[in-house]
């Protein structure tokens, strides 16, 4: 085995899983715990080779429940940490994703979506975990989920996922799909000094004054690691700013849960990212994400060539949902087209914010994402 021991930079021909793994290393991730599952396995395989080269940890846990728990433990011990999985494993992780939300643990969870429900179609793509990403764990919470549409973005959005998780002390989800994970494309990786890397805020007070869940103005508390001399407690129970359980207090419950939501709700303009092309004057706007967005953009260009005023809006953050951007486009448009590889998930959000603008949903299941022609036909039907 050759030992590279340096960050990958420059132009490379990679598959999406490997690009994601390299993005994690570049972002400073030094702990991976996972359990093999198609189509995310190559992330684990690649990191089992790369992590030790950087003094980092790769561990194959006994299941995805354990993987998610270990990721939280490693993050509390001070390492940027991640796991990667697909539908069945993502379901198993849900309870501990909630624990990461409640204990404000920075970490990244990659879910490479395949066809479900259940074991479904392991080697085929899907976009069926979008709502599970938002609502999968019990209780009220907000979450950040990013949807890459290329191998390049499998790299760059993995870096971004770590930055967001460190900024807001939250688990961040990367929702890829089987195609972006398995296809090979050219990826250009900037040199390390050109990459923006964010590290969590650390406390500057002595241990006796440290309150592990006392937020600053951005709603985010500074985070000490185990072993740094701060003897703090963290729990999945409702807790006060000291981290101590307050299971009978309505006041503490409201204060905590609202702040956990506010970390994302009140910072939404800093978090949300969309790509908009030709929406300014569009009569038809196609809202599309992930691999499907590439067909959608092609269809929009085709429509323009045919004299139809079509526009393209790609949510890069699925969660929080880009409400303002979609609402603005909807207010100007006559119709919105939403192609998804599921039976209708993000379209519900689009309908919620589109108000009176009609929304036309284009569902596809199985092997292939929508073709540009299929979406073009839907644009024509809408007009």
């Amino acid at each position: 085995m050759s030992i590279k021991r340096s960050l990958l930079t420059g132009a490379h021909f990679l598959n999406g899983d490997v690009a994601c793994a390299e993005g994690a290393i570049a972002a400073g991730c030094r702990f991976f715990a996972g359990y093999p599952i198609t189509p995310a396995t190559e992330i684990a395989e690649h990191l089992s080779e790369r992590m030790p080269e950087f003094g980092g940890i790769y561990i194959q846990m006994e299941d995805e429940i354990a993987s998610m728990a270990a990721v939280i433990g490693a993050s509390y011990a001070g390492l940027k940490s991640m796991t990667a999985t697909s539908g069945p494993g993502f379901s198993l992780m849900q309870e501990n994703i909630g624990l990461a939300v409640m204990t404000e643990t920075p970490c990244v969870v990659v879910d490479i979506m395949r066809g479900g429900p259940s074991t479904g179609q392991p080697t085929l793509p899907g976009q069926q975990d979008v709502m599970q990403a938002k609502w999968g764990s019990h209780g009220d919470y907000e979450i950040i989920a990013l949807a890459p549409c290329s191998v390049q973005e499998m790299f760059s959005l993995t870096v971004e996922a770590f930055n967001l998780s460190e900024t807001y002390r939250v688990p961040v989800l990367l929702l890829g799909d089987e195609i972006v994970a398995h296809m090979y494309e050219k990826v250009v990786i900037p040199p390390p000094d050109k990459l923006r890397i964010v590290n969590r805020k650390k406390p500057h007070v002595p241990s006796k004054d440290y309150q592990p869940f006392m937020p600053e103005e951005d709603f985010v508390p500074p985070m000490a690691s185990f072993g740094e001399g701060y003897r703090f407690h963290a729990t999945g129970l409702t807790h006060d700013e000291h981290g101590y359980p307050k299971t009978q207090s309505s006041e503490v419950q409201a204060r905590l849960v609202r702040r956990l939501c506010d970390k994302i709700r009140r910072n939404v303009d800093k978090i949300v990212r969309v790509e908009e092309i030709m929406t300014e004057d569009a009569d038809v706007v196609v809202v599309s994400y992930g691999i499907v967005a590439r067909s959608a953009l092609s269809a929009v260009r085709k429509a323009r060539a045919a004299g139809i005023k079509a526009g393209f809006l790609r949510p890069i953050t699925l969660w929080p949902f880009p409400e303002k951007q979609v609402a603005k486009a909807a207010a100007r448009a006559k119709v919105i087209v939403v192609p998804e590889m599921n039976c209708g998930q993000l379209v519900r959000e689009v309908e919620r914010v589109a108000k009176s603008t009609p929304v036309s949903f284009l569902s596809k299941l199985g092997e292939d994402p929508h073709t540009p022609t299929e979406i073009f036909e839907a644009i024509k039907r809408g007009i």
Partner: protein
Amino acid sequence: MVQEAVTHPFSKYLREEMMPHIWCAGCGNGIVLNCFVHALDELKADLDKLVVVSGIGCIGRTAGYTNTASFHTTHGRSIAFATGVKLANPELDVVIVSGDGDLFAIGGNHFIHAARRNIGIKVICANNFNYGMTGGQLGPTTPLEALTTTSPYGNSEHPFNLVHLAAAAGASYVARWTTLHVRRLTQSIKRLMQKEGFCFIEVISPCPEIFGRRNKMRSGLEMMEWFRKASVVENFSDPAKADITPDRIVVGEFVDIEKMSYEKLFHEKIAQINEKAMEKMS
């Protein structure tokens, strides 16, 4: 002369803000915690290097009561969480104090795999033969025929022998005591803290309030009387034969072996890889 109020010599080990604790009168959990902090005191343990982890259950509140870095995980996941902590920072002493249901029902898979890897985390299980926190349902250590809220006709499930399970799964240190054996338990916890690799102590602990009163042992004292009458110390006997019956509770140290820990093996690999990379560069 007026006596000056003094603080308890062990108060530095406990979070006084968290008192009073939630445990019932006669519960064994306090004894487990007491032996644990005595062991820390005798070892002069560096509390800044210690992380105490618990799952969910009555005994699971222990992490919150110890004045160290501590984490209260989801039900059953303390070992998986601790695995992440220990690997990320092998300098830390990571101790789990949790229950029979937490560690061996919902968390049983993590237990056997952590023991197999021989990862250096230290597990103390308060075995009270049932799920105390949720009101006394049967669990994986409930004896045959015992009455619980979910075995109203007597338990028909065979229980785990925890020390046999731990030994078979590959633990480096395995012991069983009851809450009656405070001195031996304290010494045993000291041994557990000092050993490399995965270490396990089962503490048979009274839950008079929930388990005892359904099984003809209404008070903590009556349960302790059972432990006194029935327990026999058989150090390094075959854990497969370490029974727990109404007449016989086999206690003692069962396993104490030297075996490289997972974190040492893994970090040695990292060192080798780095050495090779250095050679290549020079």
